[in-house]
């Protein structure tokens, strides 16, 4: 029975809870047990909140016993990437800088999930301060890909996707600045949505790049993803970059029909460096969508190759500004051997931050400094306009755009960590989306040598609905999401 429960989606579990076939406490215990069994292999969690989880589950059981109706996410065990503040629960960004930081408030997304009755299993490992594409930049330990423990889960939401792929959580929240939900979702065979910029509150999300960051759901299937979006999305007065918009019920778009829908496939996303086997999986997915009635054709987005260099100037620039607050004064790590304040700042930041974080702070500081601001940062922001215009023009003709999520399947631990540029190139298909602020989803599209491959769908601003419709149709007609990694064979009972 436990194995069945573990594999189920939130949608399926809600029915079991509402029908009293399983209690919230039993469900939470099953997931906590799974975490205990697998964590020495997967290492997705930084903090497991067992007591909090059981207390929350007990509250849901009281409600059910009283005969009250429960919400769709009520009693559903989930986990949060460790860059989302949780009141009273350690939040580290997988950094030494915040190793012992306990936030005195909840991020809005955490609060909304809590109010919806979801059960918090714990906080998930990530690349430090969300900077990375493999989860190898965590200051604590690397998370492993449940499909092949010698490989990376992707990053920076590596712990979040690994936990869902390994059924250690029913769903998770990740964050995406240049692909950090979508790329790991592709590597681990789960569904990951980066919503339109401004749809989901960033209040309490520890900032990396303020004009690019978005929180989004990571789930076992498309329905769950829409269910979670319903809870976390929507204007928040505490986030001045949050947009007041007419929030729909996203589950209404879960319709198995894409006849006549126009899909563009930008040829520049099948760039050199793309693994041919991965390209083949995507081409087969395109054929499937054609068979399902979509009108698909190749198109061009001429500024695509400029997105990466623009991103690697804009994101580090914004990061250098956001991470200036970590100075050892009010919270977080403080170096102990300093004689004066300047020494304290310099040592605290040198010791508190890891290599990639320091590299990006340096790059960003340089790009913004006097004499270089115009040549680098301002130039990149102008190129950003051109990239956004490419999307605006494409969406005059097409309803959604399609591409691979990543140029290869998951690579081995250590394979790309020697050269930062090589690592950055794994984001080539995802970064343009953040620059334009549009929504995009990655969903399982097949396998290469047993490793998942993700299909990316990109949509117009605020048109997550069409993305969900295409994703749901594809999923229901292929069933890749039902294939699970063979973890228990590698884990001793």
């Amino acid at each position, binding site marked *: 029975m436990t194995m069945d429960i573990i594999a189920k989606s939130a949608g399926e579990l809600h029915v079991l809870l509402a029908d009293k076939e399983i209690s919230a406490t039993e469900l939470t215990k099953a997931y906590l047990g799974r975490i205990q069994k697998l964590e020495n292999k997967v290492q997705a969690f930084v903090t497991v909140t067992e007591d909090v989880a059981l207390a929350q589950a007990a509250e849901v059981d009281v409600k059910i016993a009283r005969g009250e109706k429960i919400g769709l996410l009520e009693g559903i065990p989930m986990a949060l990437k460790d860059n989302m503040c949780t009141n009273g629960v350690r939040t580290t960004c997988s950094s030494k800088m915040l190793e012992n*930081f306990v936030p005195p*408030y909840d991020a809005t997304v955490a609060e909304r999930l809590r109010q919806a009755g979801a059960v918090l299993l714990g906080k998930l490992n990530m690349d430090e301060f969300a900077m990375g594409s493999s989860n190898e930049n965590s200051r604590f330990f690397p998370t492993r890909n449940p499909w092949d423990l010698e490989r990376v889960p992707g990053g920076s939401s590596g712990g979040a996707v690994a936990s869902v792929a390994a059924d250690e959580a029913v769903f998770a929240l990740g964050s995406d600045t240049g692909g950090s939900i979508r790329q790991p979702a592709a590597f681990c065979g789960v569904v990951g949505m980066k919503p339109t910029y401004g749809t989901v509150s960033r209040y309490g999300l520890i900032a990396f790049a303020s004009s690019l960051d978005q929180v989004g759901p990571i789930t076992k299937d498309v329905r769950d993803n829409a269910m979670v979006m319903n809870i976390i999305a929507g204007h928040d007065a505490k986030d001045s970059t949050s947009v007041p918009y007419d929030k729909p019920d996203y589950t209404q778009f879960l319709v198995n029909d894409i006849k006549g829908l126009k899909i563009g496939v930008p040829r520049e996303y099948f760039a050199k460096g793309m693994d041919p086997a991965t390209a083949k999986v995507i081409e087969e997915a395109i054929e499937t969508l054609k068979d399902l009635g979509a009108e698909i054709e190749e198109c061009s987005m001429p500024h695509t190759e400029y997105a*990466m260099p623009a991103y690697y100037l804009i994101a580090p620039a914004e990061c250098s500004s956001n991470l200036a607050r970590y100075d050892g004064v009010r919270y977080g790590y403080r170096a102990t051997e300093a004689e004066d304040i300047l020494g304290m700042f310099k040592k605290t930041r040198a010791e508190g931050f890891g290599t990639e974080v320091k590299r990006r702070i340096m790059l960003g500081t340089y790009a913004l400094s006097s004499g270089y601001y115009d040549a680098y940062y301002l130039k990149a922001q102008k190129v950003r306009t051109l990239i956004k215009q490419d999307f605006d023009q494409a969406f005059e003709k097409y309803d959604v755009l399609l591409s691979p999520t990543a140029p290869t399947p998951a690579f081995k631990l250590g394979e790309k960590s020697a050269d930062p540029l090589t690592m950055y190139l794994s984001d080539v298909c995802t970064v343009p989306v953040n620059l334009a602020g549009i929504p995009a989803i990655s969903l399982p599209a097949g396998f290469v040598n047993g490793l998942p491959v993700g299909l990316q769908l990109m949509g117009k601003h605020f048109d997550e609905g069409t993305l969900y419709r295409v994703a749901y149709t594809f999923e229901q007609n292929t069933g890749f999401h039902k294939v699970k990694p063979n973890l228990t064979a590698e884990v001793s009972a």
Partner: protein
Amino acid sequence: MVKILNISRGDVEQVALLARLELTEQEIVLYTGQLDSILEYAEVLNRLDTENVVPTAHAVPLHNVLRDDQVKPSLAQEKVLANAPEVEDGFFRVPKIV
């Protein structure tokens, strides 16, 4: 068009000071090389004529999002100080400044 110069060791030391980062000798050498490569890669942006292009600072059109100036309670002092490395009399205590 502005000519982009790649980064030198002196630049790296200056930037480290601005960013309040103490770097080891090894790190200075490493970062100089790596940042130089990244900036070299970014030179490709110069192929584009952006003379008449307006920069995008924000992906969605929002301007001056303000609220009415109403006084509301803020975070309690004990909570503010709870994560502090060193506290004295309700102050954050730090090494000498002057």
